[in-house]
């Protein structure tokens, strides 16, 4: 019997896996009929998920945790049985600002650029017109990545600059209107700003944290419990979509599918840049290859590590300026559901980690990890400042950051 699932999403390249699972028939082969609900704000994606317009949604990872903890609205427990991808976002700067502090033609060195930005920010603050950065949402990885980088470079995000919310499709407009000096947003919206020659891509978020958790598949916990087999089927279908997505043979076809107006919309050539890890950094420039700009498949990329949820929780504590609570931390960790992922992929031959939590940022070279099935060799997952996050020592970590 075919099971219906409606999936909410925002027009972004990293909504690719459920879309391609549908378009290439992987979902159908798993006995699923998928339909999609496209929206233009995370608030609406979340509302539709909570009030049952959708069964599951493409969501910014910290928002799934915030909704569960009841930050900003009444608490509703969400579950994340699948990570839709790691990284895939860019940091852009207005052509004017980039012209002053960035080199041309390459992704910048985050430390050097951060140092140059620090003096620029200080100067603008003295002049009474702080530099302003756009992010997509308070509870987004974009916000946390940007703040992590700024803070590690000695720029206090809430004092030395201003961080505002801008909807991804309007980032290029915000640059054109002089509303922002920088932004951290997903593709293809960085590339669109480059195309319109209002901004330059200066960093990939992968340079801040090599394997940073990005969008997740979120579902209400009672819905996951009630329809567990359907969600496990969806996980398998999306793993197959991921294998298809990373194969260079399929880049053109997948870019054309994602560019359709009912999905991301826009120019397939722009979408192809992100999915091929080849970004044009400034208007008229050559494409620059950044390996693993998006990371949707290899090394069990979709496995929801409890330690990823906990890292996001520490950043929530850090920037909401709320006290650390062991109880909240446990609730945040429980949002990510490696148990569901495992049971979906068990006996498929797909590599499965043996542990559910790891020290994030600790792998500096290729490292084999213990698995339940298959072989996984993790490539470096470092933070740019050399720090690492041990989920067993959260309070120590927070003390170090604050």
């Amino acid at each position, binding site marked *: 019997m075919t099971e219906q699932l409606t999936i909410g999403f925002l027009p972004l390249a990293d909504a690719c896996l459920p879309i391609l699972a549908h378009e290439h028939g992987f979902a159908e082969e798993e006995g699923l009929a998928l339909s999609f609900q496209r*929206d*233009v*704000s*995370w*608030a*609406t994606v979340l*509302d*539709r998920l909570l*009030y049952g*317009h959708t069964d599951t949604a493409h969501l910014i990872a910290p928002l799934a945790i915030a909704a569960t903890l009841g930050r*900003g*609205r*009444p608490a509703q427990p969400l579950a994340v049985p699948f990570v839709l991808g790691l990284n895939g976002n860019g940091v852009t700067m207005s052509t004017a600002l980039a012209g002053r502090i960035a080199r041309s033609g390459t992704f910048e060195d985050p430390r050097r650029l951060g140092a140059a930005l620090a003096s620029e920010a200080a100067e603008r603050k003295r002049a009474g017109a702080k530099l302003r950065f756009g992010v*997509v*949402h*308070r509870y987004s990885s974009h916000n946390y990545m940007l703040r992590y980088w700024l803070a590690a470079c000695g720029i206090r995000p809430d004092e030395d600059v201003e961080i*505002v*919310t*801008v*909807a991804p*499709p*309007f980032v290029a407009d915000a640059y054109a*209107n002089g509303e922002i000096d920088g932004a951290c947003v997903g593709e293809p919206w960085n590339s669109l700003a480059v195309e319109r020659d209002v901004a330059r891509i200066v960093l990939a978020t992968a340079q801040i944290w090599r394997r940073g958790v990005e969008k997740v598949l979120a579902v209400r916990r009672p819905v996951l419990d009630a329809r567990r087999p359907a969600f496990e089927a969806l996980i398998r279908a999306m793993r197959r979509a991921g294998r298809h997505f990373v194969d260079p043979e399929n880049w053109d076809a997948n870019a054309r599918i994602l560019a359709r107006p009912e999905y991301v919309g826009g120019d397939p050539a722009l979408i192809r840049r992100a999915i091929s890890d080849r970004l044009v950094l400034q208007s008229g420039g050559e494409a620059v290859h950044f390996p693993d700009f998006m990371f949707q498949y290899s090394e069990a990329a979709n496995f929801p590590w409890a330690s990823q949820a906990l890292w996001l929780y520490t950043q929530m504590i850090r920037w909401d300026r709320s006290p650390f609570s062991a109880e909240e931390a446990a609730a945040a960790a429980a949002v990510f559901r490696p148990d569901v992922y495992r049971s979906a992929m068990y006996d498929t031959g797909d590599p499965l980690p043996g542990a559910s939590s790891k020290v994030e940022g600790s792998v500096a070279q290729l490292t084999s990890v213990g698995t339940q099935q298959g072989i996984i060799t993790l490539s470096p997952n470092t933070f740019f400042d050399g720090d690492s996050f041990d989920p067993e020592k959260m309070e120590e970590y927070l003390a170090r950051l604050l």
Partner: protein
Amino acid sequence: MRIAIIDESTTRASIIEDGLAQLADSEIFILTERQGLISRLEAFAPDVVLIDLGNPSRDVLEEYFAVSRVLARPIAMFVDESDDEAIAASIDAGVSAYVVDGLSAHRIRPLLDLAIKRFNAFARLQADLAAAEGKLAERETIDRAKRILMDSKKLSEPEAYAELRRKAMSSNRRIAEIAEAVVTAHDLLGDGT
């Protein structure tokens, strides 16, 4: 009560405004532009904000409310948890409501009910309009198909129509679909004039 309606569709905004005008002691303020939204909203100092779910400014608005919670006029995201049914109904209708903290439920309910009714009415109007436009487009296609048949097969208008109808009946399809096929074939194969 000061009510702000944020909607990029000016037609829908005025339909809602019209509905809410029945409420006593209410001042209504409509914002349709994305630019400068927050500063204009701030100047109006609303007790209630209504925004359609499809509005791209929702995240910007929620961020403003999150920050303004520390200010003098805190705005709660939702009416309150016990009013979950009303919220579900408003989400179904496609509208989201934000309310100043402390505004009592008995003042909000009638307002929300009216807004929901108006949103639903607008959705029906849109559906009717789309259906009417569809019919009009179909009529034009059928007219074009008739002209093609009249020219190429030297038929009279009633004969051309009868031809379309016969084909539709024998292939169990609608006349409009047959007409569409004729027009497409003509565009592909004909001289394009």
